[in-house]
């Protein structure tokens, strides 16, 4: 456990308002080593962004509540840190980039100011303004933006370039962990490829660990070492990229996800989407969360939530794997 960069254990998060409580994240556990890229996959509303915000401790103050679990980063417990220390971690040791580049940048500040700010906030080795300016240039070059444009304002850049600026800001202090929340979802496909490729190169160059949050299985395949599939706030399957892409054993939801992808090679007349919708996060079902939609559902699935079953590095939370060959129940 100690060689892990970040380790999340039994984390549960709720959003509480006067009307209702949303159970966004329910008892998830995963960890990353230094330099590892971890994919967090799932539909909208599965709890991925909430998990990311919780790691950064950026949950909305008035409604977000961490109801259980722990997050250990670099030997420290993040959930117990005072805000001032957390602030020094944000942007410097753990950075996050968000989904929509169009609105992630402050419209009235130049690009240089915003990137420089990331460095000024964490200026441990007392860089002079001159140093910082030079570093801004370096960082812009790193993401493929000519430094001559650093005095421009966000609205003068295209979507893809804005996202590069965001990435530049996030990597300016060379953090140990980068959380990327659907970084390319709002971009068009050709730009997506460019940005992903750039992220990969930077990651390799800087040795940054990354949590890649996405619903796009293609991106996961291109970038991730390990993957976790989230559904209704829980991790229902987790393993290495090989486990997820090559193994024949899967959680029915994961099978459904793969089945929803159009396959260029084989002849299919129709896509097979997963029937139904994710359960209402304010009223989660009693047994397995997926059972209302599960094509392989058994009687026990409605009554009892499943345990976690392990086969080497591959973990699946599904009653189907009870007693199956090679699969052992994982004691919590």
């Amino acid at each position, binding site marked *: 456990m100690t060689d892990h960069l970040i380790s999340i254990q039994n984390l549960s998060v709720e959003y509480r308002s006067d009307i209702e409580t949303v159970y966004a994240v329910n008892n998830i556990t995963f960890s990353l080593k230094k330099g590892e890229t971890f994919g967090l996959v799932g539909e909208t509303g599965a709890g991925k962004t909430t998990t990311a915000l919780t790691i*950064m401790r*950026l949950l909305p103050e*008035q409604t977000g509540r961490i109801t259980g679990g722990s997050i250990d980063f670099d030997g420290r417990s993040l959930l117990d840190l005072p805000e001032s220390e957390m*602030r*020094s*971690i*944000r*942007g*410097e040791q753990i*950075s*996050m980039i*968000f989904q*929509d580049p169009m*609105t*992630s*940048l*402050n*419209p*009235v*500040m*130049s690009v240089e100011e915003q990137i420089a*700010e*990331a460095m000024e*906030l*964490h200026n441990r080795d007392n860089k002079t303004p001159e140093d910082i300016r030079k570093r801004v240039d370096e960082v812009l070059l790193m993401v493929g933006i000519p430094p001559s444009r650093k005095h421009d*304002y966000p*609205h*003068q850049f295209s979507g893809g370039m804005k996202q590069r600026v*965001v990435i530049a*800001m*996030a990597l300016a202090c060379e953090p140990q962990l980068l959380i990327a929340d659907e970084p390319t979802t709002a971009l068009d496909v050709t730009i997506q490829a460019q940005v992903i490729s750039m992220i990969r190169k930077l990651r390799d160059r800087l040795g940054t660990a990354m949590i890649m949050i996405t619903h796009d299985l293609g991106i996961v395949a291109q970038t991730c070492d390990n993957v976790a599939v989230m559904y209704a706030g829980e991790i229902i399957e987790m393993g290495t990229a090989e486990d997820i892409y090559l193994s024949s054993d899967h959680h029915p939801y994961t099978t459904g996800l793969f089945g929803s992808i159009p396959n260029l090679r084989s002849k299919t007349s129709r896509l097979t989407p997963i029937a139904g919708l994710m359960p209402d996060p304010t009223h989660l079902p009693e047994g397995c969360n997926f059972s209302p939609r599960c094509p392989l559902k058994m009687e026990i699935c409605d009554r009892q939530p499943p345990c976690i079953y392990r086969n080497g590095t591959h973990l699946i939370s599904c009653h189907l794997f009870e007693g199956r060959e090679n699969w052992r129940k994982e004691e919590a």
Partner: protein
Amino acid sequence: MIPIVIGVSFLIFVIIDMIPGDPGSSLLGAGARQEEIDMMNEQLGYNLPLLQRYGKYMYDAVFRLELGTSYATKRPVITEIANRLPISMIVAFNAIFFSLVFGVPLGVLSAVKQNTLFDRIPTGIALLMASQPAFLIGLVLMLIFSLWLGWFPATGIASWRSYVMPMIALGLPYGGRQLRFTRSSMLETIRQDYVRTARAKGASERLVIWKHAMKNALLPVITVAGNSFGILIGGAIATETLFGLPGLGSFIVSGIRQKDVPVVTGGIIIFAVVFSFVILAVDLSYAFVDPRIKAKYSGGRR
């Protein structure tokens, strides 16, 4: 802007033209002879068709700086206006200053401390103030501070003291509006994604508010302040009348009562023109501050 000034002046001219009465009889009085009246009317172009009268009026106004003669005082309207306009302007700007000084910071405070007492109390008072007509607040102030306490004179412009109560009477309702609007603008800004980005960079809450949120939140506040200037003028006129300040507003009011056409026409048009200038100035300053708009103008696009 020129077309608007023309449009406004024409509109006013047409409306006021509907007031019954001719210049000849009004200026010369009831006892004058009919021939004299007719001659004066002819001289002033009263018998010309509307458009020509309007043209003559505008020509006189712009190139000869003449706005006619007051029926009541028999003095040139332009002189009266020139004397009175500065007073109205002082009252108006005092009120704006007062309202911004109180409204904006409290608005920011109530947004930052949303749903706490620091929010509910200022917001409640702001709404209460914004629901009052300026003259009512003025009367209450007058009652307390002039009649009971004797700190400020009730009417007239004896000294700087005379300007205090009008400033507060006008400034309070306007300030209430500013507070509410600043608050909602601020709340909306705080919810923006780029604020979240700033926090993710490790910025402290204070930095986030002061550096990132404020600048963006205040932009619409400037525009709204400019636009609500029209409402301010309404209150200003009533306040001038109440406190007996010899400003343009009270001048126009007495002009209407006395059916003094040149005064009313000239006064309202001048007021409207000044108003347009203020709006223009606000728009320009907005362009100055917001880089997105600045780009539009400096890029040569018009």
